[in-house]
């Protein structure tokens, strides 16, 4: 197999184009770090700015990434995606899409072929049933509830009773159960119809994990630890996954769109995991409105406007949200 030849040809094809100078070239960048996430800003020669968010970065990581992309066309977000690895790609990709949308005078979801929907189903984290009423008042109708192997079924029943009709739950194992415990939990809640069981166990031995979904039909969500689209291909091939849960702080919108394209061929939904700020949530909204197989987005309270269970789509160009630098709550 002439794989060396193919690799060489591919490398040539992906070879960065000569640096451009021109109004849309990336001229400078800046990075802020907060306790929960990092925010980056890119600016073109013409002075257009774009913002992105990801998991906390070291300044050196951002500087290295910026050095790689400086001088390139800000609309070449897919080329730049292939040059970057790790969470920094998520932030830079969003910033590039923000700039591209502003250049095109269109919200990002329009740049990406949408909108595929007119609103975005939202989910909030619910640790304590006491917070339920408040979150319902804020518009939420779906909740992610942390569980242990011992309390899953009883918690679901208790929370459902408190919530009444029209409210649904994702049970969150946070990757802390063993596959065996997860299998027992999955079977125990099968007839209670949670939306799905999220991150029931660590993804170590996939065959051990696949026993969970062989033994019961509770849908399973995985993906918080995923970094690349191929990570999901393996979960789909092994038939262990019902909901893709890529983390918006770790995977770029462009990468998640590729994972979604893979998942579509398995009739499987994408529900991005999101514990970030307003920029990450906005990126998630644009992503949701650009793919067909989106189901739901984690939307931390205060990061978007929610009504009757759904978030409103931004309509202004780019990310479409007002940004005040330094105010990264």
């Amino acid at each position, binding site marked *: 197999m002439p794989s060396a030849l193919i690799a060489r040809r591919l490398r040539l094809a992906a070879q960065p184009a000569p640096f451009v100078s021109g109004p849309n070239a990336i001229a400078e960048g800046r990075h802020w770090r907060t306790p929960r996430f990092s925010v980056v800003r890119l600016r073109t020669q013409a002075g257009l700015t774009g913002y992105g968010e990801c998991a906390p970065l070291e300044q050196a990581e951002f500087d290295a990434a910026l050095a790689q992309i400086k001088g390139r066309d800000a609309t070449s977000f897919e080329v730049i995606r292939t040059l970057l690895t790790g969470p920094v790609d998520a932030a830079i990709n969003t910033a590039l899409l923000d700039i591209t949308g502003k250049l095109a005078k269109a919200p990002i979801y329009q740049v990406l072929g949408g909108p595929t929907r007119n609103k975005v189903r939202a989910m909030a984290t619910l640790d304590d049933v006491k917070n339920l009423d408040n979150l319902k008042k804020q518009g939420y109708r779906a909740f992610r509830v942390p569980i242990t192997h011992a309390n899953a079924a009883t918690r679901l029943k208790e929370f459902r009773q408190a919530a009444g009709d029209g409210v*649904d739950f994702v049970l969150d194992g946070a990757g802390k159960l063993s596959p065996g415990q997860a299998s027992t939990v999955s079977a125990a809640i*099968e007839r209670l119809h949670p939306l799905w069981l999220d991150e029931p166990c660590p993804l170590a031995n996939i065959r051990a994990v696949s026993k969970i979904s062989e033994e019961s039909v509770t*849908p399973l969500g995985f993906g918080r630890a995923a970094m690349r689209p191929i990570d999901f291909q393996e979960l789909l091939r092994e038939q262990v996954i019902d909901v893709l849960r890529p983390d918006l702080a770790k995977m770029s919108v462009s990468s998640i769109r590729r994972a979604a394209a893979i998942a579509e061929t398995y009739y*499987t939904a994408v*529900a991005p995991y999101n514990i970030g700020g307003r920029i990450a949530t906005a990126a998630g909204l644009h992503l949701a409105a650009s793919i067909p197989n989106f*189901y739901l987005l984690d939307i931390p309270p205060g990061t978007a406007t929610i009504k009757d269970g759904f978030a409103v789509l931004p309509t202004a160009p780019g990310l479409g949200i007002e940004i005040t630098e330094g105010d990264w709550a």
Partner: protein
Amino acid sequence: MQRRLFLGAIGASAKAADICGCSFAPQAALGAEAFAGVGSKIKITNVKVFGVSLTPDSDRPYVFVKLETNQPGLHGWGEGTLEGKAAAVMACVEDFKDFLIGADPMQVEHHWQSMYVHSFYRAGPVIGSAISGIDQALWDIRGKALGLPVYKLLGGPIDPRGVRGYYHLRARTKADLPRIREEAGRQGITCFKSGIPGYYEWIETHAKISRAVQAMADLREGLGDGIDLGIDFHAKTSPSVAAILVKEVEPLKLLFVEEPCPPENVKAMQRIARRSTTPIATGERLVAAYACRELIEMGVVDIIQTDINHVGGITALWKAGALAEASGIAMAPHACEGPIGGLATLHVDAAMPNFLVQEICSGIEIGLQEKVWHEWLGFPAMRMVNGRFPLPEKPGLGFELKEESLKKYPFGGTRPMARVFHEDGSVAEW
């Protein structure tokens, strides 16, 4: 001049084949001449295609194909109705016209191969439906020329009383069920099929899942245990949602659940089937036996439901049945188009040892469609007697149809099938 050049390259006598193999010759005239000594004297002289709309806004105008021959009075009818894409199939039948005129209609297997293989890209639903219409018409001619109904040419019938069938349930509420059950008793109907309410997202809520399970339980309760019940999910559920539903309805002892998810991913369907004892059926959207191969070989489903108007006619439906039989998988062919395909499928059914039950998209009560079919063919086509479709006795497909009788229902043009959307405006399956 050009044609002689091409003929010069036929077969082993090909001279100076070039090194890149790019000078293959379209051998337009080969069909008839190569079989001069071994074929019949019958020649196809004309290909006609009819679009027939029962109502001007029908989304599924019938596409009928008529092949005429050089023998007085000998012609064949076939059907290639493709819902939502009528004009495309009609144009595709026309594309095969040059190939068919002058050909010997007795060589149905040979022509099927040529239409499929020489279409190069193989067949999707449009080419598949066009081949289906032509194939059925060829079989009609063959049967008439040989003086036998097609099911006898295929080595049947398995059961001379006819072919067991089912109607669509079409109950609006639970309250309709006792009346339908009584009427079924009177007519000897032993099987029905129903859908499930609503459209389904990738993941579903407790309320939506419970409602679907309850709807199926209500149907079983209303019909009683003496009637077989198939439930068509119509691929509107994702594998994740379908897996829950088919498992929870196990106690209802359904005859099958049909298309629990869309057809492109066989392993996704297998994931549903593996986790439940409810029998799984699929296949109405598949073209040619090739499309059934993986489903059968991987043991994904219990029942194959290929449709004689899309799969590639009698030839291809029989082959799908042969593949299924070898694996102990049953056949329950789909039929939701016109009367020609309906009657054609009965012939194949009657000759398949693994035949289970035949669909027709009719209710237990007669409507416009059934009246028109009767008017066209002179008998109550595709109506069951004692739970079975009677077998046509005349040679060929076993009916006469006059072109003039179609004129009352002129082609109203292609109309799209239903377009449905979820609450957030995104595309839904129906």
